[in-house]
C-alpha cells in the first residue's frame, strides 16, 4: 500500500482536487514500514535539545499509556493548526469527527520541517527513515519514484488529503 499525503499546512496546497505537479506532497510506502519508530524519534530529536528529545510535532503517538500502534507513520492530521487526539489505532489516518480542540492545540503543528526545507533538505522523518519508506517532494518528483515502484510489486495507491474527510 502506498499513501500520498497532501495537507493545508504544506506549501503551495491551493489546488487539492487534482494534485498539481508543483505541489509538495508526502509519499509513504507502507509496504516497507517495519514500525521501528525512527520517524517519531527523528521528529523528537529535531525539536529537542542536543541529546534530549523534545515533543513530537508531526506524529500522533498513543495518548494512553501502554497503547501500541500498528504502524508508526507520519500520519498527522494536517488539516488545521490544532492537532488533536482523534487517532484511530486500527486505521492509522486521522479522523476529525467534530473538530474538537484538545489540550495539545497549543503545540505547533507539522510544517514539514520548514527550516530543513529552506536549507534544501528533506524533513527529518523522511531523511532519517532507515527503510526508505517516506518520500517528500513535488508531485513531479514523486511520480518518478512511483513509476520506479510500479516496475516491482506495486501495491494499492491511496491519496489522503482534506477531500477524504467527510464534510458535516
Amino acid at each position, binding site marked *: 500500500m502506498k499513501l500520498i499525503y497532501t495537507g493545508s499546512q504544506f506549501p503551495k496546497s491551493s489546488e487539492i482536487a487534482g494534485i498539481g505537479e508543483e505541489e509538495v506532497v508526502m509519499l509513504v510506502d507502507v509496504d516497507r514500514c*517495519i514500525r521501528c519508530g525512527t520517524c517519531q*524519534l527523528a521528529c523528537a530529536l529535531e525539536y529537542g535539545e542536543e541529546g534530549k528529545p523534545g515533543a513530537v510535532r508531526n506524529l500522533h503517538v498513543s495518548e*494512553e499509556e*501502554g497503547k501500541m500502534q500498528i504502524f508508526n507513520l507520519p500520519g498527522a492530521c494536517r488539516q488545521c493548526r490544532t492537532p488533536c487526539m482523534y487517532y484511530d489505532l486500527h486505521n492509522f489516518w486521522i479522523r476529525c469527527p467534530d473538530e474538537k480542540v484538545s489540550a495539545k492545540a497549543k503545540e505547533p503543528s507539522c510544517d514539514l520541517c520548514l527550516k530543513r526545507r529552506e536549507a534544501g*533538505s528533506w524533513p527529518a522523518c523522511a*531523511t532519517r527513515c532507515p527503510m*526508505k519508506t517516506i518520500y517528500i517532494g513535488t508531485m513531479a518528483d514523486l511520480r518518478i519514484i512511483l513509476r520506479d515502484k510500479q516496475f516491482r510489486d506495486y501495491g494499492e495507491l491511496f491519496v489522503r488529503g482534506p477531500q477524504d474527510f467527510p464534510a458535516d
Partner: protein
Amino acid sequence: MRIQKKQLPVRPFDRVVKTTCPSCGAGCGLKVFVKDGRAVEIYGDEENQLNKGSLCPRGLMALSHLYQEKRLLAPLMRERLSDPFREATWGEALDHVAQKLQKSFQASPESLYIRLSPYAGFGNIALGTVWGKHWGTPHIDSDLNPESSVVSTVMRRMLGIEVNGCAMSARHEWSASQAMLLVGVDPATTDPVAFGAILDAKDRGTRILVLDSRNTTTMRKAHLSLKCRAGTEQAVLLAMANVLFGENLVCEDFLKQWVVGMEDFQSLCREYSPEMAENLSGIRRENIVEAARDLGKKFPSMVIGHSRSGGQETGAGLIFAMIALTAITGTIGCPGGGVNLLNNFPPIEIKSESSKEIRNSENRLVGAKNGSAAWRAIAEGRPCPIRGIIWDTDPLTFCPEGRKVAEALRKMELIVYLGHYPNAAYHQAHVVFPLTTFLESEGLVFSGTGRNIQWANRTIPARGRTRPAEDFWGGLMARLNFSSPYPFIREKGEVSIREMTRYFLQRSPLLAGITPELLDPEKSPAGGIQWPASADEIDFPNHRAAVRGREGLFRPGSQIPGTGKRFPTPTGKIDLSPAKISAQPGFHNLIKIPPSGNGFKTNQLILLTGEIVDSLPAAGFWAIPQQFQISLFAQIHPKKARELGVQNGDRILLENKRGKMEAPVWVTDQVEENIVFCPSGADPFDPKFPSATPRGLFEFVPEDDGCGRKIMGSTLVKVRKAS
C-alpha cells in the same frame, strides 16, 4: 526550490567526524556533528556501503546515552555492599582491585569469573581474555571464544572452518539471491538496516520465506510465512530437504563433487516427511512443499539464521539442517547463497603470551553468552565455586533464576563492574569503573551481519573521569606485572588502542593484512574491509572501491588461505553425515509442544524473550523517550487477553517460582495463544522503564517441567492481571 534527502542537520556545528556504530552487527557508518567539544547531531553516513545513510533508533539514541543524567562519571568503591560508595581516582580503584585480587584470590585464581561483552569494545574482550589467561582462570566468557559455541563445532565438522560467518554472502550480494529463507530471526526488529537489504532484494523479485515460531515483523513482509510451534524449525527444514530429494530438485553436480555423507543424510531426511513435519510444527504440508520448491528451483537461494541459534536447545540440529539445505541446493560459495548467520564474529585470534598452566580447566564453564553454566556456578557453586566476578555493561539482564542469583551475588567477595549506568549490576558491585561510550573512544568494530571489520573513531573528549575498558585491563596488567610481553601497554598501564588492535590483527592469519589506518572512515573509504584479508592480498586493485576485501569464501576454484582446499575438512568436501554432529547437545531434542490451549491451565503461558531495536539496552539503560511507550511490554493473544480480562495498556504480572515481573499488555496476534513475549534488556533500576528482566524467570539448564516439554529460551509462567 528542489529539496533533497541529505543527511545533514540544520543546527550549527564546527566539524563532522565519521565513525561506525558498534551497537549491532549491521555496522552503520555514522556522521557525528560536533560543536564546542559537544556532539550535537548524529546522522548516517551515505558513503558507507553497508547502511548508505540509514540509521535505526538504536544508533540515533547514542547521543541520549552520551548525555544521560544518570551516567557514571567517576570510579566508585566500597568495602561491603552495605556501605555507601565513595568516589576515587582510576589509580586508587585499580590499586584496590589489584591488592584485593592478590590477597584473596592468589591461592585459587580459578574462582574468578570474567564476563566480557562486545558492547564495551573489542579491546575489552581482547585484553580481558589475555589478562584472564595470565591470571590463571579458565572462566572467561566472551563471544570471541569459539570453544564455547555449538555453532563453531558444527561449522568445523561440516565445512572445516569454525568461524560462524564463513559461509556468509557479503551484504551487497544479498540482492543477487533468488529466494531467501529466514529461520528463527527477526532482522526487521533486531537489525533494521540489514533488513533494508532484504526488502531491497524483495523489491527486485526475490522470494522471501520466513520460518519462525512468532508472527514477527519480518514475517509480515514475507511472501510465504511458515509459522511453526516453538522448537520445531529443525524438523521443517529436514522435511524441506526430504521434498527436494523426492522431487529431484537437488544440485547433483555439486553433490557429486563436493559432498560426502550423502546417504546418511538422505536416510535421516526420510524420517521427516512433510506430513510428519505438519503434525509436529503445525505448518500446512502444502506450504512446506512450496517453500522447498522455491529453494530448489530458484538459484541461488540463501538461508539466514542467527549465530546464537546454537544456544537453543535444538541448536546443533538447526545449524546442521541449515547448512545441509544450502549444500544440497549447491549454493554454498555463490554470491547470494550460503548460510548467513547474523551477528557472527570474525576469525580474530586472541593469543596471550602467558605460560601459566591453568588449573581446573576441565571445569571450564562452556556456553555462549546467554548460557547458564556460569550462572549456576555463581548460584550453586558447581561444578566449581566462584568467589569473585569482573563484568561489564548489563550482565544481569541475561541472568536466569533471578532470586537465587541475586542472593548468591551478595555473598561474593569481590565484584568489579565496568559500565555506563547505575543498573542492577552496579548495585551489586564493590568497585565500579565508568566507561566511555563508543563516541568517546576509538576501536575495532565487527559488523557481523556482513563480513566487515570497521573502525570507530573518537568523536569528542571523554566525559568526566570515564575511560575505555582497555585502560582498566592495561592498568591491572601493569600492577600485576603481566604487561611486559605486550608493547602496546605503557608503563603506568595506559593502552594505545591502535597499537593493540594492530598487534591482535597481525596474529590472526585471515586478518593479517588489515590495519586500523585501512579501516579508519576518516582516512580510507567508509565501510571497512571484508575478511578474509591476509597480508598478501590486501593490496586491492581499486583502493577507492566501495567494497573492499574478498567477496566470499568457498568460491568455486578458490582456496581457504593456508589449507589449499576449497572446503578444509579432512576429505576436502562438505560433510553431511549427521553421525558426526548428533553427539552435540540437542541434536535429537525436537520439542513437541501440544497445540494451543491443549494441556495448559488457563493462566499458564510459555514466556519467550528476545532483543528489540528501539533502544540500546546493551549499554544498560533505555534511552528512548518515555512518550513512545514501545519499549517494555508483554505481547499476548487477544483470546488470552479476554480470558484474563485485560486490555491494551493494562499491567499483567508474570510469575513463577524463580521470580516475577510486571509489564503493560500489548494484545496482538503476533503470538500464539499459549505464548507471552517480553523483550529482554529490562533493568529494575532503569529511570524510565524499571522492571525485572524476563530472563530472571528462566531456569539454569533445560529441565523437564513435568509436562513433557523441554524448552530453552522459554519457560512456563503464571499470568494474571496486576492489581
